[in-house]
């Protein structure tokens, strides 16, 4: 890489004026007689040291006498590569212009201001100077932020404001861009060799940018030009970034918080669903056993009671036997209702919705016996037997109604007798069957109509906060939906049931 660059670029020799005689062969060096035209001047400092002065930026280097020839040779080689290439500069300039624009675009999605600066640096500056020290001080703060940036590393520390001001003023006052390490030696800024530096004053910040290759070899015109160009072009950008740093970081923090919350919400939903499915299938198994164990003896009682009913001649005895039969019927219905409520089957079946609602009221009888029920159904939906047949999953439906009814009855517990009421209105809608559900309880405050569906949101001391969240999931799983309507008269919900034909 170095070699190809050396051969491709047009060579230029370093004009050397030396007060001491130079022995040995030097490539790319032209020894001249006058200091006026020299690029580099060699003087004797003391018995052991020479000084090397770069005319262009009045930069001095102190070196050991024994190192003179190799040092001059390194400088000359580097110098010969650095002949100004105006075409290259023009091209870089254009690139930088479009770079600013894309930098601003990226600014909109940054996560961290310094990371962003690191990225924008590594696209430009870090290719020439692998280490950049980016130090900024917010006017009025007691310390400055100091970032040491390379393409794969970002170190952060603080710097005292006095020290910052020292360095800042030195760079600001100096006419040149290149500095020897000695000028910064006293400070916390840890630099090896010479460096390029720029200081800028913004509305609310002061900024120092120092670039270094960690080498003693001086920077050529190309490097200095590129560094200045980069700084001049990007200073406005840095101004904007630093000025708005707080807001930018806040925005990106908010963004990442909301991303995290979204993830959290999804995981939570998944966990809830899994928890729910597990609970339901366990309860389902228990109830299935219970149902089988109970239904066999119940069937025996039913059979023998119906035989007895026919055999008995006395009206009183007959009535008693008939009442036994009714009680058995009730037991069987409850067993069926519960096993529907906790069945793990996802099966879509033909269901009489009115009967299902009735069964749920039976299951919740201990809670709902004082509550007046008004169930209305659009007559066109009923068949000749007065049934409302829909294709849906009976377990999901039972659970949704079970939850709504239990919630209502708990909310209406304090009402004077005769005032507790649950109304259910069933009508046809384009998207499916619409069930308007309402109670006469205290209702749901307008600002919580959405929150009540959030998992773990509960107003009850012993609630899990999962009921409505699960109900909504169940409704949506069947292609329907469940939401709460803003109302000043009790709680109102709308349940949409998609027909089986719309469910895959």
């Amino acid at each position, binding site marked *: 890489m170095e070699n190809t660059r050396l051969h491709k670029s047009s060579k230029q020799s370093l004009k050397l004026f030396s007060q001491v005689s130079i022995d040995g062969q030097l490539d790319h060096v032209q020894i001249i007689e006058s200091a006026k035209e020299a690029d580099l001047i060699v003087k004797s400092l003391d018995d052991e040291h020479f000084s090397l002065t770069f005319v262009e930026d009045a930069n001095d280097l102190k070196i050991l006498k024994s190192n003179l020839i190799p040092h001059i040779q390194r400088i000359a080689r580097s110098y010969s590569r650095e002949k100004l290439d105006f075409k290259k500069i023009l091209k870089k300039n254009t690139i930088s212009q479009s770079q600013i624009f894309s930098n601003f675009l990226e600014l909109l999605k940054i996560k961290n201001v310094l990371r962003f600066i690191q990225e924008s640096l590594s696209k430009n500056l870090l290719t020439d100077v692998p280490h950049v020290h980016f130090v900024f001080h917010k006017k009025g703060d007691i310390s400055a932020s100091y970032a040491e940036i390379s393409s794969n590393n970002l170190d952060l520390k603080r710097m005292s404001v006095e020290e910052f001001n020292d360095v800042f003023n030195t760079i600001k006052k100096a006419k040149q861009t290149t500095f020897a390490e000695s000028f910064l030696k006293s400070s916390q800024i840890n630099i090896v060799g010479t460096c390029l530096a720029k200081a800028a004053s913004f509305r609310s910040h002061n900024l120092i940018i120092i670039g270094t290759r960690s080498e003693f070899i001086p920077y050529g015109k190309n490097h200095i030009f590129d560094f200045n160009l980069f700084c001049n072009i990007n200073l406005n950008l840095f101004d904007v970034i630093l000025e708005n740093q707080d807001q930018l970081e806040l925005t990106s923090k908010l963004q990442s918080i909301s991303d995290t919350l979204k993830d959290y919400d999804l995981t939570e939903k998944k966990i809830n669903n899994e928890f729910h499915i597990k609970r339901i299938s366990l309860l389902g198994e228990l109830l299935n056993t219970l149902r*089988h164990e109970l*239904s*066999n*003896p*119940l*069937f*025996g*009682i*039913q*059979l*023998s009671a*119906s*035989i007895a009913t026919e055999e008995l001649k006395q009206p009183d005895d007959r009535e008693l036997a008939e009442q036994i039969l009714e009680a058995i019927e009730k037991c*069987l219905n409850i067993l069926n209702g519960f096993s529907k409520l906790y069945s793990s089957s996802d099966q879509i079946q033909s269901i009489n919705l009115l009967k299902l609602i009735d069964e749920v009221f039976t299951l919740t009888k201990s809670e709902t016996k004082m509550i007046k029920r008004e169930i209305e159904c659009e007559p066109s939906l009923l068949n000749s037997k007065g049934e409302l047949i829909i294709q849906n999953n009976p377990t999901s439906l039972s659970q949704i109604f079970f939850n709504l009814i239990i919630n209502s009855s708990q909310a209406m517990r304090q009402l004077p007798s005769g005032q507790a009421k649950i109304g259910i209105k069933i009508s046809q809608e384009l998207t499916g069957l619409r069930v308007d559900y309402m109670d006469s309880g205290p209702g749901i405050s307008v600002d919580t109509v959405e929150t009540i569906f959030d998992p773990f949101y509960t107003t009850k001391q012993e609630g899990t906060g999962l009921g409505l969240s699960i109900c909504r999931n169940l409704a949506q799983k069947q292609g329907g939906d469940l939401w709460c309507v803003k109302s000043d008269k009790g709680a109102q919900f709308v349940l949409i049931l998609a027909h089986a034909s719309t469910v895959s």
Partner: protein
Amino acid sequence: MQVLLVEDEILIQKSLKMLMEKRGAKVTAVSSGKDAIEQIKFHDFDRIVCDLMLTDISGFDVIEESKHRYEKSEIAKKFIIITAYSSSQVIDKANGYGCKVLNKPFDNINDVIETFLTV
């Protein structure tokens, strides 16, 4: 007509026995699989109505034991299985013997008695 009724739920057993006897059948009722096997060994029945979940052994074990006395085709005709657990495995196994399976509780008791007594 000679019927063997194997059912451990005593109220179901008594009721079914009564209903079948009302229609003129001669019913022997037992509560365990062991008693059922004993009956099958020493008597000839036109119909065997057998519950699946007995307290000692299963209805299928009763069928296996009766293979000593009846041909496969006879078993398919004689046996009717009544059960409260009708999983698909149960139905598949019953189909293997070629006999009828009726689920408890019965929807219509008269139809069921009719089925029991039609050979």
